[in-house]
């Protein structure tokens, strides 16, 4: 069963097309990651799923949890808007209780305590939201989205502003939600998080869907055109090697994108002539790399319809 079905939906604001003819299916029990550059339509899509925004009139439709009704109010859906969403002057416990009651949740008392405990916020339960750090407020907001045990959880940038420890706490909580049968959709800028957590990844760029599927299926589309190398020596510029199209320097190692017809052995040979090669790996491009390829295409790619077809079919 699919929790969300979006069919051919367009959303414009004035002359600006935020989302263009989008179709997307979110299966039940999955964790779906939405990625894309700022302003590409992620939040608009999330809001349409929330029914905060309604798509432009047309053939398109959105079905959430089997229903196509127009109002946002749905107790089975939990939502965390980007960064904000809390009353500054309210105490943490009061605001969680308020959101739980609003979702029609009656046994909120125990739930609030369990969640506060779990998120390490027990000491802050009677503090006002305004005194919380950004990370703590983010956790409070997350609790308020999931406290009523929703079937579908929509999180807009839940990991922004969290330190690694808190990010781990939150990741565990999200994975737990899935274990308990909830479906989670979240947007993120952190490609590592998306790679590690998401069953399915959706990338939107300038309002168009450019990627959709499992990480493996996405990487497959891009083929094994990436070499990850580490070379000791005097800062040799790998770009001089014939057949290398792009070099991304990660400091410890470098990622080389090679053209289709290049033989990797030739590249290795060339590298060995310039220094001691301690790592040489033929791999699929990382999500990060794919993201960058789509979002900042090199000059030669600009006129290609990047959005529609893989670089290497």
């Amino acid at each position, binding site marked *: 069963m699919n929790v969300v079905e979006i069919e051919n939906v367009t959303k414009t604001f004035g002359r600006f097309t935020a989302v263009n003819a989008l179709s997307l299916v979110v299966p039940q029990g999955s964790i779906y990651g939405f990625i894309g550059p700022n302003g590409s339509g992620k939040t608009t899509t999330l809001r349409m799923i929330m029914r905060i925004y309604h798509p432009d009139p047309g053939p398109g439709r959105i079905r959430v949890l089997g229903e196509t009704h127009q109002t946002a*109010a749905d107790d089975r*859906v939990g939502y965390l808007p980007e960064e904000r969403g809390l009353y500054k002057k309210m105490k943490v416990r009061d605001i969680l209780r308020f*959101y739980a009651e*609003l979702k029609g949740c009656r046994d909120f008392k125990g739930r609030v305590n369990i969640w506060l405990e779990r998120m390490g916020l027990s000491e802050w339960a009677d503090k006002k939201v305004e005194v919380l750090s950004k990370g703590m407020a983010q956790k409070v907001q997350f609790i308020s989205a999931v406290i009523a045990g929703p079937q579908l959880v929509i999180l807009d940038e839940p990991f922004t502003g969290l330190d690694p420890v808190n990010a781990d706490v939150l990741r565990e909580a999200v994975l737990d939600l899935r274990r308990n049968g909830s479906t989670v959709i979240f947007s993120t800028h952190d490609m590592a998080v998306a790679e590690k957590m998401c069953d399915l990844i959706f990338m939107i760029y300038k309002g168009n869907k450019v990627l959709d599927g499992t990480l493996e299926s996405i990487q497959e589309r891009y083929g094994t055109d990436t070499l990850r190398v580490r070379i000791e020596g005097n800062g040799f510029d790998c770009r001089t090697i014939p057949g290398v199209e792009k070099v991304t320097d990660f400091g410890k190692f470098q990622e080389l994108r090679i053209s289709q017809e290049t033989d990797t052995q030739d590249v290795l040979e060339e590298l060995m002539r310039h220094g001691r090669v301690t790592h040489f790996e033929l791999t699929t491009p990382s999500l990060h790399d794919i993201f960058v390829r789509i979002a900042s295409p090199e000059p030669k790619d600009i006129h290609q319809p990047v959005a529609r077809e893989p670089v290497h079919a």
Partner: protein
Amino acid sequence: MRKMIVVAMREYAAAVKTKAFILSLVLMPIMMGGSIFVQMIMRDKVDTAAKRIAVVDYSGRLFEPIKAKADARNENDASDKQVKGIFEERDGVRTQVQPRYLFERIEPAEADPNQTLLELSNRVRSKEFFAFVVIPADVLDAKGDRPGTPVQYYSNSPTYDDIQDWLVPPVNESVQSARIQSAQLDPKTLKAVTERVWVGNLGLVSLDAGGQVTKAEATNKIANFFVPMGAMMLMFMVVMVGASPLVQSVLEEKMQRIAEVLLGSVSPFSLMMGKLLGMVGVSLTIATVYLVGAFLALQYAGYASFFPVHIVWWFVLFQALAVLMYGALFIAIGAAVSDLKEAQSMMTPVMLIVVAPMFVWVNVVREPLSTMSTVFSLIPPATPMLMVMRQAIPPGIPLWQPLVGVVGVILATLACVFIAGRIFRVGILMQGKGAKVGEMMRWVFRG
């Protein structure tokens, strides 16, 4: 419905549980009563140092009577109606509450009157005298016409007019008795002839249970003026305190994206109504505190009978409707704008409507039964304040008027809530620039 109540409870708690609310609840009467209290204290804190006043009496006949009056004043109690002295009985102690006036005759040293004026002016400047008075030789022949004011009071303190005022009776008494003498009239007859008659101010009489005509009650300023004014002011205050915070509250929900979360749980209309009900609760809380406070204060002062018990329910009804009516407008503003500055400029016209009754209330309180007052009090935005005020003025108004008023206000409230609902639904989720009035109209009419 349950969710609406959850929203209302939060709104109520958010408004009432703040220190600012409790503080303003306490401070408002303190500030109002305090200014009266301070005035009462300050009235007693006058400078009681004696004031020396030089008198140049060219007539030679006025100084003595003035001096005699001043001496009597300097030694007598204020309770002495004849003299009006400067002492008061305070906690059993005779206390001086006004300065003594010490008049001293000065013989003009110079032949030139202008030189005398200059010399005395300089002595006032050097603080030897507080002021000086010049009485012309022909003062007793003076007519009452203003241009040739015969007696002149010179001082360096033009705003201190106590002495000047005090001088009028002794001067006039002397002048009058001189005139009476020269006209050869009998002072006693004259006094009897010119005795003043007062006009009393009474309410109307009616038949009591026994068929007897009741005695008319002397009207009372507290009942006729201060109680109606207090009722109107209280109405104004609870509407302001109850309704206007909604602008900020909605704006916060909009800007902090709280609205998006809320609308994932409640419908926009329930959210708006919840907020309105919460604020009705807040305003009722304030009204209860002040009505009980006013009752206790009146009772303490022995005026409990002036507390307008018969209009309390009307007051509460009108107040709840007024908060709904104005609150809806303020919610619409909060939803349509994108920051406080925009909100402020949008609020101005609504505020003008709220305070409009303030411009006419004096006329209404003077003539509560006039056609104009009736018409004003039936215009829905003004009804809550003016109708309650008119009801508070004895003997009250016909029952149909508040009934028609309530119906009008209910209709206006429904219209405001409807319009606000339309604007709220769209505006609350709109980010970026605030809406223009034309845009808001479109939201209202297209639905």
